[in-house]
């Protein structure tokens, strides 16, 4: 049923990380009635994550540059008049109408638990939508989807042991809850952040006993590439050098071309076994070593959160180094789905600076589309953003030889390894089903892999890899499991709407 009733706005931004916040500031400053929703209790997304509810910040400098950058984006969005709501999840998206509900606690000004104030048709302030008891459908002129990314799920024997956590999870613990994850922490990962994570953890007082990078150490050739691409990216180069220095000073051993092969322990992780790998991250036999740890932090890069894009019917390309499926966008960051724009790591993982500029560009695109500014003015305003984005893209391509993702990352599981942890499905089971089909949906129906609470986010890549191996294909050639709402689990009582008429079975 398409209904025009309900709250409206000009631009709905889904996601309050760097991309969404930067977009909110730009859009609101051009007069768009802008609503930003984020499901977390605090704004800032993963990288600029603000401390959780209940924390009072006495000295903001102690929280580091990321906190301050995030705070600045929040402030400027709010000053421009954007309405920012936390603890609010989008569970479905069709066209430019989004189904929202108050999913959790919320903090900070501009939002209150269980209540969302949106823009009404007449008086902006009049309409108060209580979202604690049911969902609300918000109709927007344009929707900017900026959902971010999550840690690339990597499956190895022991990955489900308590004490094995993702880099993002560890980061969230220290940033939002001020909790350090363990006493002896090993980090295994790859990518530009493989240095940043252990350096940050070390900075927060975590005892990091070993850091592994799957890629090669930076050699003269790749450094030359970086220098050539570097104009405009000196800050990023400096960050990398600083992280390395921090690790060295802290006495954290950093080893290149090695990956985790399994986590060992009875009730929780007690040791991490690691091994040397070749250029495709495939394990070199006989190179295993073990280190005693109580926590393993795994960070082999990120994969975009694509659920909302898939629901909206957007088309995708594929780039493993950007996290896999990458939504297609035009010069204004419009997707192929009418009215839906895209920005940030959810559109290919490139980091917070790029995300913010993509968000600003998308906000300009929405402003142009909706007639708030002329195309000429928009193009003028977009020019510096596009210049910066181009420079960063050159830098990223130069980094590729260092941080390209190897297919070996999908080959660490043994037949007994549980791949779908929600439904406890082993690789052997999945391989067995993959012998009968090339369709991951069929593997899902035979094995239940992907039917659990994570809705397939963790196992779908492994299932796709298993199907690809069996069929002699590569992962991008394998379709993903069908996308369906809800994008987040939502209580039946909230989904329920008594006002929907029950017309009987066969009235059409």
């Amino acid at each position, binding site marked *: 049923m398409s209904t025009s009733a309900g709250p409206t706005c000009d631009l709905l931004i889904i996601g309050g990380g760097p991309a969404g916040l930067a977009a909110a500031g730009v859009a609101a400053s051009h007069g768009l009635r802008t609503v930003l929703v984020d499901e977390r209790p605090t704004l800032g997304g993963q990288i600029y994550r603000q401390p959780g509810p209940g924390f009072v910040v006495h000295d903001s400098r102690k929280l580091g540059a990321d906190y301050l950058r995030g705070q600045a984006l929040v402030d400027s969005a709010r000053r421009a008049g954007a309405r920012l709501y936390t603890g609010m999840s989008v569970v479905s998206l069709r066209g430019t109408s989004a189904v929202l509900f108050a999913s959790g606690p919320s903090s900070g000004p501009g939002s209150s638990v269980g209540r969302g104030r949106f823009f009404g048709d007449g008086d902006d302030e009049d309409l108060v939508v209580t979202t604690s008891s049911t969902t609300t459908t918000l109709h927007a002129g344009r929707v900017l989807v900026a959902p971010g990314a999550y840690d690339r799920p990597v499956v190895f024997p022991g990955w489900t042991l308590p004490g094995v956590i993702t880099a993002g999870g560890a980061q969230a613990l220290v940033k939002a809850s001020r909790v350090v994850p363990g006493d002896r922490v090993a980090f295994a990962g790859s990518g530009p952040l493989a240095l940043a994570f252990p350096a940050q953890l070390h900075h927060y007082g975590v005892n990091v006993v070993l850091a592994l990078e799957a890629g090669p150490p930076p050699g003269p050739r790749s450094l030359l590439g970086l220098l050539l691409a570097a104009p405009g990216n000196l800050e990023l180069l400096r960050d990398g050098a600083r992280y390395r220095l921090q690790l060295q000073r802290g006495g954290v051993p950093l080893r290149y071309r090695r990956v985790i092969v399994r986590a060992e322990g009875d009730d929780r992780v007690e040791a991490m076994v690691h091994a040397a790998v070749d250029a495709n991250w495939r394990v070199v036999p006989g190179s295993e070593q073990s280190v005693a740890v109580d926590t393993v932090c795994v960070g082999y890069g990120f994969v975009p959160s694509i659920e909302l894009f898939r629901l909206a019917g957007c088309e995708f390309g594929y780039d493993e180094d950007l996290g896999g499926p990458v939504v297609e966008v035009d010069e204004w960051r419009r997707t192929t789905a009418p009215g839906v724009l895209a920005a940030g790591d959810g559109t290919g993982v490139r980091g917070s600076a790029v995300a913010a500029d993509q968000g600003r560009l998308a906000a300009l695109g929405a402003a142009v589309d909706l007639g708030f500014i002329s195309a000429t003015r928009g193009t003028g305003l977009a020019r510096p953003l596009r210049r910066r984005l181009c420079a960063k893209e050159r830098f990223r391509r130069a980094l590729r030889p260092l941080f390209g993702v190897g297919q070996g990352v999908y080959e660490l599981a043994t037949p007994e390894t549980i791949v779908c942890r929600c439904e406890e499905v082993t690789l052997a089971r999945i391989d067995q089903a993959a012998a009968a089909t090339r*369709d991951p949906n069929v593997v899902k129906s035979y094995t239940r892999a992907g039917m659990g609470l994570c809705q397939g986010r963790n196992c779908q890549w492994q299932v796709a890899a298993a199907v690809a191996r069996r069929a002699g294909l590569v992962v991008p050639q394998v379709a993903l499991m069908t996308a369906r709402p809800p994008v987040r689990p939502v209580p039946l009582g909230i989904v329920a709407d008594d006002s929907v008429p029950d017309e009987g079975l066969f009235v059409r």
Partner: protein
Amino acid sequence: MTVVEVPSLLLPADEDLSAPLPASTDVVVIGGGLAGCALAYYLAKCGVEVVLLERGELNREASGTNAGSFHFQIALHQLTGSGVESDRARLLGDVRLLAAAAEVWSGLEGELGADLGVHVTGGLMVAETADELETLVTKQRIEQEAGLSTEVLTGAELRNFAPYLAEGVSGACYCAREGHANPLLAAPAFAARAIEAGGRARTHATVIGIQQDGTRPLSRFKVLTTAGSIEAHRVVNAAGAWAREIAGLCGLDLPVRAEGLHVNVTEPRERVLTPMVQHIGRRLTLKQAANGTFIIGGGWPARPERAPLRYSVRWQSAAGNAAVAVRVMPALADVRVMHMWTGVWASSDDLMPIVGEFAQCPGYFACVAPTGFTLGPIVAQMLAEAMAGRSPGGLPAEFRPEREVALARN
């Protein structure tokens, strides 16, 4: 959490489903859903040469995307709104068929030597209003007369039996034989056993044309597919929701259309609900599966999309379906919906099975059943026995493909 084992013998992987089509066969069955797979099995078991053709993968449409319920009681969709008594003669026939379906399902795991996840949990058909309760009482008498044992519970008896039902539920009709099976296992099990019995199956073979030559009685049909062609003595249209398009290839008409259905699936919870719950006046089926998840459906529509996309979720259907469920079982309010899925089903004009041979096209049969999960195995068995010449009474006239549809039920 329960792990559903995949017994390897139930995967028809031993057969090369993508091998070239055989040159000829006695029977070609079009459609790899429950009806087609079951028919292939029962035909092969009777010694009839059969090749099953599926355009995609086995069991991917209605047969594998329904909630797996056995509906044996007279339900909302069988009522015309003109009163239960006025439908009496037809309902008696319906119930007799349903009682026979219950027999088949109760023996199916033994027949196929496979765990199909069959759970006979009993089923409750609830009523809220006085009118609904009266309907329950009347329909229960018809069920009794047709040989299906049911009883109406009210008051303290109902509260004791089903304490999870809301105060507003005034009565419920209980049928001990109702329950569910795993829809992901039934059709593949039939297919695997059909292959073991000598039948053959080919997937990714889309039927694009059927040529007829009446002068060649033993290979009257030539079925053209995207994977080659095959000559056949007889053809069975078991294409479910797409049976009308397949019938059209021979210039025949089948009053079947595809409808999209919505299902809500929750996170798993501790077991509180044993029987399946349905509603005599509202669109609701509700049950708690073996792994603790609640599966909630009942006929709420999904939105058609252009091919090759599948039906998409109408949020209105999710919301309406959830509202009925929470009203009937208030404790569901805080259980989280984890997945929504859409399925398709084959709706016929009178919602009766279409099973039998076309008089105007000898050798061409239909095997399509709305509410096909319940009825698929029984109608396939009936048709197979008739086609193998083992059914002295023949098939019921009311299932004939070319019957006059007297009554379009609302």
